[in-house]
């Protein structure tokens, strides 16, 4: 198993707060596959800066409200 990147995220929690938004709907909104959203949520993939901004915008938040750095 690859070492997970030190970037954390609240995407799953925010999807639930956002009316139970599905992974597919989020994937569609930011232009990636559902499996990529799953990989981001599980910390298996760190999204590009562009995708991080897109995800944050979907929830109406700033990047640092969605993503964190685990020191």
């Amino acid at each position, binding site marked *: 198993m690859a070492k997970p990147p030190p970037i954390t995220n609240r995407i799953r929690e925010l999807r639930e707060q956002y009316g139970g938004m599905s992974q597919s709907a989020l994937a569609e909104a930011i232009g990636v*596959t559902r499996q990529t959203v799953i990989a981001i949520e599980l910390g*298996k993939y760190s999204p590009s800066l562009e995708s991080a901004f897109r995800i944050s915008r979907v929830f109406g938040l700033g990047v640092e409200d969605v993503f964190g750095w685990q020191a």
Partner: protein
Amino acid sequence: MSLTAAFRNMPFREKTAWVMAAILIGGAAFYLDLVISASRALGQTAPPVIGFVIAYVVVIVTASVVLMSALAATSPREANDPADEREKIIGDKAGNWSGYVIVVPALGALWHYAVNQDGSMLFHLVFLSLMLGQIAEYVFQIALYRRGV
């Protein structure tokens, strides 16, 4: 989760990687079987036969067209979608790593030729290196899809 369900939930490009890896492994086995059978019949390494190479290419192309068309028919939307950022990284990494897989047996083939002066074996080993490189590319893609980039 059953194998069928696991396959259904895979990204389209991971499915294609599984299918292509299987086709290429089957194609390599088919080619090796032709060469080994011919070599046994001759009592020495079979010389390069263009017919074997053409047969290999025909098998690979036919199987790819049939199976990829069937796969695309089951997920037409995903099949038409361009690769996303993660899939592009996976493709790039797998392509890069597979280059090393080609180099190692190719160097072995050159060493074998330098020692034994067997040009026929050189041809088959270099061709095998290319086949292994292609198989490795899809195997690396599958591994990266499974374990994360």
